């Protein structure tokens, strides 16, 4: 996988090769690849001269550092109490219907992944979700449909 090698090398050139650079590099891989493959982790370990198990252990600690293949757009619906009270389940239902995947899954075309997450900090405007870095709030099934349709077009 030469592209991964180059990507990791580039990220290490930018962020440095100390242990402190590890998380920024992992984040960089996510930005480009949506998930961190075992090849990517191996390359990172090599660049930083640390053990691969340490890279794996660090990556798996953080919920945004996915080590499973994810779609281009990762949807994270807040499941914490206030969003749950404001109809989070309906939103998930709608997303499952629209994308034809279950929670935790990725569409076959690798465009969308549907996940739940803990409090996003939009409790006053629940239900809320993130699509990659973008926050969407005060969701209703209709609104979700519009948003997803926009992404499908992208």
């Amino acid at each position, binding site marked *: 996988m030469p592209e991964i090698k180059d990507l990791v090398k580039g990220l290490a050139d930018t962020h440095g090769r100390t242990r402190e*650079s590890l998380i920024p590099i992992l984040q960089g891989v996510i930005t480009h690849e949506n998930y961190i493959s075992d090849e990517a982790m191996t390359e990172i370990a090599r660049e930083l001269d640390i053990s691969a198990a340490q890279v794996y*252990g660090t990556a798996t600690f*953080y*919920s945004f550092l996915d080590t499973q293949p994810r779609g281009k757009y990762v949807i994270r619906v807040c499941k914490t*109490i206030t969003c749950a*009270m404001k109809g989070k389940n309906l939103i998930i239902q709608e997303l499952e219907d629209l994308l034809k995947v279950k929670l935790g899954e990725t569409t076959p075309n690798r465009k969308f992944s549907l996940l739940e997450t803990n409090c996003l*900090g939009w*409790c*006053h405007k*629940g239900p809320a979700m993130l699509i990659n870095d973008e926050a969407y709030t005060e969701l209703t099934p209709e609104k979700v449909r519009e948003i997803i349709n926009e992404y499908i077009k992208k």
Partner: protein
Amino acid sequence: MSYTQLKRVDLIFDTEATTKDILQTAWSKTNEQIVNELLESGLKGRGGAGFPTAMKWKFTSEQAEKERYVICNADEGEPGTFKDREILFKVPQKVFGGMAVCAKVIGATQGFVYLRGEYRFLLKELQKQLDDFHAILKALSINFNITIIMGSGAYICGEESALFESMEGKRGEPRNKPPYPTIAGFRSKPTVINNVETLVYAFMITKHGAKKFKDLGTADSRGSKVFSISGDTPKAGIYELELGMTVDQFVEEFGDGDTKAVQVGGASGFCVPRKKFKDTIIGFEGVPTGGSMMLFNSSRSMYNVLHNYLEFFEEESCGQCTPCRVGCQQLIKGIEAVKKGEKHAVYLDQLMKLSQTMKITAKCGLGQSVANSFSSIVDNFKEEMIY
């Protein structure tokens, strides 16, 4: 509605004076003056633990090690809290300003903002604001630099020592204390870590002096605070209010007329039931809060609320220490079993004792605070827990 009882304050979001003006005021004072004003103001940390800010700065400035850091804790992950996001969105320069003043006091030249991954959308604008801020510092010949570090989705990284670990490129596992951050924080150097809101208050106290802040609030809880209000309320949002109100006063203004409980301080805070609204003060003398206020009306099942909190802790615990990692799983499985009738209601008593053990033996504040919501909900809504 008696609006008069809750005093709105406008210290945080007020943009009357420019950052540059305030910085100039600060730099016209001695470090001792700044610390004394902070001490006089009675400002306590707004991140949850409520440690006097002046003392933190003072201890750090007194260390033998000269390499020191100031860190802004913008990991805001407590369920029901979203005020730091608003502060960073509306008045980022004041946050940076507070950091600069702290840096002056403790003798730091490098600061960091640890921003939670969920707020990455703020990054672009924040970085722009930071560039402007650096330009102001340069104009004033102040040698201080701030770097924004992104989190990656882990509530525990809001705990200060976990945050340092995370910044050092590791798993966000809280450290043993002592040593405290003032002695050995980021890179094991003396470090001040403050909440976003604390830093803005510190900045504004440097501008206005102690009195304006001290005159607000109560003896134990001076000043005002930014509240994040959500749940069953027609007025969900962010409000800066004087401290010292009772839950009753709060509910009168923000409730929907049918409030049965208020969760003060997020999932790690306390649940106040209707019958205790009148006697409970929101503040360090009563129920402390980092700003999260969640209202529940009588249509809500407190079992579901508790279950949701426990799931949160079970997932967000770093997992290293026994009481927290296994305790959370047991509390969930336990209330589920009681709810389904697989265990007798007396099992709740055993779980209560377990939560007390977690409170006194867990390694960090996360595991220690699970008991807060657990015991306050189970105690007050026992009938809702039982099959």
